[in-house]
């Protein structure tokens, strides 16, 4: 019998705010320990929480982006448990009435022939506060607590158990990662913990309806680790079951060094969080006007932009998809087109040479040495026949390496196409005179011979002859 893995994700997204969710302490990353821990962050006796408006607006943005219902009344609740990085002994979260209800996110999985789309259902998204951090090794047998992060606003986004492979889970996580950056609610910095995933994994025999017992892999902050962790966990669960064992519900951690997961010791005892509405906070009311106000500042969403690219620029589905896979790429592409480049050529260049270079140098598009205007200038030189496609690649290389602007590079490298028909005719004549055999082949019906002749002409012109003209002149002379 074949096994099936069932995966659901809970993602903690740090919201882009200046100050914490319930206090005026800074959320900036990397400060000295506890220098951004105010009396509220420290849970001093008597202090009280007041909700950050920006955090609420981020939640509304997300709700709009996933086509979800935004609760006109949501409630903050206390999740009670003891942990040294949780200063109040409870986390302020949302339980029964979250701010964002059911929504969905479409993902593309795989590439090429095997690529497929899938709709992942979002169960809910709720606002909550982050905890601090434990620093180990401060002193023998002791941990040090840094509460700078305590109170940083989070949006916890929960999916239905809709994913059936590590690839799907990673595709979802990447799509979500892009989306939250696209709508400007998260900086997406996974190294700094701005985007952290808990992955619920269970396995069952194919065809079975009942879900297996799940184990939750906590705090994955890289897509590579997520892939590895899910694959390991899936294998482990299947092997355990096939060996006649049982899966115990557990919270596990992934160790990137060993590639294995192991149960967390601190979570061994069953938790009883004693949720109840936080009496220090009132119900959060969000009116239709509040939602409209946020809508006004919403950027165009990827799906809408994709459709626009298809209709406005007549781009194929594949191009539109790729170009809207990230806000930065989409913005770059739009800027190239706005600077006068042909849309399809711009798309080819952005997805092709630009993407390849960025990949190779592990750079983001924002750090590209060639800005959209420069790329548009290059494309325009192809469009107006100044240079050939091949020559353009050389110009691109040179521009990337900072050798100057498009025209000066073309000039310096002598890459200008020969479009003077007299000059081309002369070369064609030379080539025809020296290749009688090929002419005969062509005339006897072998089309390949024509291409060979074009090649000879191009070679003789050192690649500078305008290929379209070469074709035209050759055809005329051979007819």
């Amino acid at each position, binding site marked *: 019998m074949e096994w099936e893995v069932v995966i659901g994700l809970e993602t903690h997204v740090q919201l882009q705010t200046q100050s914490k969710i319930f206090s*005026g*302490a800074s959320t900036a990353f990397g400060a000295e320990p*506890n220098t951004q821990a105010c009396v509220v962050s420290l849970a001093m006796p008597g202090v009280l929480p007041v909700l950050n408006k920006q955090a609420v607006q981020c939640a509304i943005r997300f709700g709009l982006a996933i086509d979800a219902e935004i609760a006109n009344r949501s409630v903050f609740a206390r999740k009670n448990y003891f942990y*040294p990085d949780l200063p109040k002994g409870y986390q302020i979260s949302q339980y029964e009435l979250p701010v964002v209800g059911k929504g969905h996110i479409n993902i593309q999985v795989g590439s090429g022939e095997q690529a497929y789309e899938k709709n992942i259902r979002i169960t809910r998204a709720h606002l909550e506060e982050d905890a601090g951090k434990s620093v180990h090794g401060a002193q023998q047998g002791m*941990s040090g*607590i*840094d509460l700078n992060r305590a109170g940083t606003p989070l949006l916890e986004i929960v999916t239905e158990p809709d994913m059936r492979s590590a690839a799907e889970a990673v595709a979802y996580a990447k799509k979500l990662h892009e989306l939250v950056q696209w709508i400007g609610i998260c900086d997406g910095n996974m190294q700094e913990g701005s985007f952290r995933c808990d992955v619920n994994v269970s396995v069952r025999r194919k065809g079975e309806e009942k879900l297996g017992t799940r184990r939750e892999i906590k705090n994955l902050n890289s897509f590579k680790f997520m892939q590895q962790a899910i694959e390991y966990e899936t294998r482990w669960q299947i092997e355990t079951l096939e060996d006649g064992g049982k899966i115990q519900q557990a919270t596990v951690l992934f160790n990137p060094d060993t590639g294995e997961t192991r149960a967390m010791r601190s979570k061994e005892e069953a938790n009883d969080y004693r949720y109840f509405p936080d009496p220090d906070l009132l119900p959060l009311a969000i009116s239709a006007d509040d939602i409209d106000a946020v809508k006004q500042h919403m950027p165009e969403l990827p799906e809408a932009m994709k459709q626009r690219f298809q209709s406005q620029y007549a781009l194929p589905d594949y191009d539109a998809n790729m170009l809207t896979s990230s806000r930065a790429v989409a913005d770059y592409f739009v800027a190239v087109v706005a600077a006068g480049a042909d849309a399809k050529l711009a798309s080819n260049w952005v997805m092709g040479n630009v993407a390849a270079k960025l990949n190779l140098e592990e750079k983001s598009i924002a750090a590209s040495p060639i800005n959209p205007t420069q790329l548009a200038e290059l494309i325009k030189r192809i469009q107006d026949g100044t240079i050939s496609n091949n020559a353009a690649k050389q110009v691109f290389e040179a521009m990337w390496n900072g050798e100057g602007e498009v025209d000066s590079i073309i000039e310096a490298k002598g890459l200008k196409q020969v479009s003077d028909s007299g000059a081309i005719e002369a070369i064609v004549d030379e080539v025809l005179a020296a290749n009688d055999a090929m002419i005969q082949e062509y005339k006897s019906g072998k089309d390949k011979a024509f291409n060979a002749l074009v090649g000879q002409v191009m070679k003789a012109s050192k690649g500078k002859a305008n290929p379209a003209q070469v074709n035209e002149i050759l055809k005329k002379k051979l007819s």
Partner: protein
Amino acid sequence: MSLNSQDIKRIAHLARIEVNDDEAQATLNKLTGIMALIEEMQAVNTEGIAPMSHSQDVTQRLREDQVTETNQRELYQSIAPSVEDGLYLVPKVIE
């Protein structure tokens, strides 16, 4: 519902309060009476009654997203039981 001293120990553990057997027994005796008092609520029909948490029908006020706090670590840590290099020290946290 009746409590026993094991329940008391379980609850005390949830609340992170150490109790020995004698204390658990003594607490049980007092809590039993109080819980009986509380049980009077169960006879009340509250169908259709909305729970009340604030006397006025008010909603949450939102704060502008501004940093208003400055670093006061020295002052705040002057009353801490154990600190080193700006960190609060606790027995090792095991994950």
